[in-house]
């Protein structure tokens, strides 16, 4: 009997420790959210969303162009990155054992851990040197960041599609490539969509690549070959000025909100529908 009581106590201690660890782990996230919300809320008014960025040091203004810029650059990166990433993922999953596949997979994994600033320099070297600071450069840099993530998640999603599905299609007299492009892709679409959305959420918040490619600006979008604003850059700039830092917090709040929204959407859209 004595050892039972002792075990129960040990059990309770362990559970409490686990809970405490959880709380400690959540503190940073909670505090970020709390701080951002508290400090950013004062900036939330309609004009904040639509006005242009004021020159350094001046009060007022908004982050309209920054939101627009982020959306455009991310969209451009997606348009470039998603198709390349998905097709690479499909290739790796279907030709798993070949020499090329092994090499590509290895390079892909390496690329996922390249520092983002390096990608920024790449974008700079490729595009900015040729045509100047531009949205195009930013899009390319972010696309390069996106591709390895999408490739990896697509490959995993396709690998999860059971062989029985493929065999069923093949047995119907459907050529191998068609099986992959229709039945397999369609079965994997949830996993692929998750991967895509998460990579979008990831690149939306990247600052370094944008520093060296789109440069940043105070004005609305002016063309793909022109520099443009973006939320991470806006946050950086606003925080340079000692006054009116609420604008930086406001921009942070908006950015975090966008990323949170994407994450929650992904979770909701891919939830288990049937128990």
């Amino acid at each position, binding site marked *: 009997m004595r050892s039972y009581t002792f075990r129960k106590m040990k059990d309770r201690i362990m559970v409490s420790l686990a809970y405490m660890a959880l709380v400690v782990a959540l503190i940073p996230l909670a505090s970020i959210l709390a701080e951002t919300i508290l400090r950013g809320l004062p900036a939330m008014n309609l004009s904040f969303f639509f006005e242009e960025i004021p020159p350094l040091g001046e009060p007022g203004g908004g982050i309209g162009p920054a939101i627009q810029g982020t959306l455009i650059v991310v969209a451009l990166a997606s348009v470039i990155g998603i198709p390349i990433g998905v097709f690479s993922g499909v290739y790796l999953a279907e030709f798993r054992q070949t020499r090329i596949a092994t090499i590509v997979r290895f390079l892909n994994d390496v690329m996922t851990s390249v520092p983002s600033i390096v990608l920024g320099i790449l974008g700079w070297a490729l595009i900015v040197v040729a045509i100047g600071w531009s949205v195009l450069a930013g899009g390319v840099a972010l696309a390069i960041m996106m591709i390895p993530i999408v490739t990896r998640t697509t490959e995993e999603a396709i690998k999860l599609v059971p062989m029985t*599905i493929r065999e*069923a299609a093949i047995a119907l007299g459907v050529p191998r490539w068609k099986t992959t492009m*229709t039945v397999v892709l369609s*079965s994997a679409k949830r996993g692929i969509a998750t991967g895509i959305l998460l990579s979008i959420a990831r690149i939306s918040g990247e600052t370094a690549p944008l520093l060296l490619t789109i440069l940043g600006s105070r004005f609305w979008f002016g063309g793909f070959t022109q520099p443009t604003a973006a939320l991470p850059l806006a946050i950086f700039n606003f925080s340079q000025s000692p006054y009116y830092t609420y604008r930086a917090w406001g921009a942070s709040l908006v950015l975090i909100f966008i990323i949170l929204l994407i994450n929650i959407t992904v979770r909701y859209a891919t939830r288990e529908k049937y128990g």
Partner: protein
Amino acid sequence: MSYKIEIEDLNAWFGKKQVLQNITMKIKENVVTAIIGPSGCGKTTLIRCLNRMHEITPRARVTGRVLLDGEDIYGEGVDPVTVRRRIGMVFQKPNPFPMMSIYDNAAAGLKLNGISDKRRLDEMVEKSLKAAHLWDEVKAELGKSGASLSGGQQQRLCIARALAIEPEVLLMDEPTSALDPTAATKIEQLIRVLIEDYTVIIVTHNMQQAARVSDHTAFLYLGKLVEYGPTKDIFENPRSELTEKYITGEFG
């Protein structure tokens, strides 16, 4: 009655391991031929060679001839895809396409092979679901997900899907082993009806099923064809002692 399929000296390997040895047999048209034998005897490999599915496994190899209506499906320049349109297959675990409705599942083979005329698809879907004796049960809810059906119904859906592309031969790899007895019986009765229009070859590890359902039975052991003949003879008076031992349950 003529021979629909003639297998001549078929050998098959997985890498270095030989799984089938010198199989030679002639399969009659419009009958049910069962292939029985203990686990690992090569029966699944055998039927997968008949619709050229064996070769999609990496490092799989086949030699020999398989004549469908007199023409070798392994001949020079023969596209396996066309073979598979004439010889359909139903698998052990029912595998309707997930995220597709009953209608789409039945029509899948047709759609993927380029047929898009709605009227023709409707016609073929109804015809094949009727042939699989599933029409009455699902005709009111063709839009429901294929996965929402019971196991037995899913398997009949898979049969309908295979029949929709109008094959001549239907291969069935242990089609009822994942089903409950009542559903299994329905499928067995269905098979007896199907032979009016198709030639059926069924692999089963359930000897009694082979006895009930088939007209001819082939007994495979360790990759070799031990005995092949009318089911009545195999189960009443087998010629080979090995067959007798297997059937009476001494091993396997």
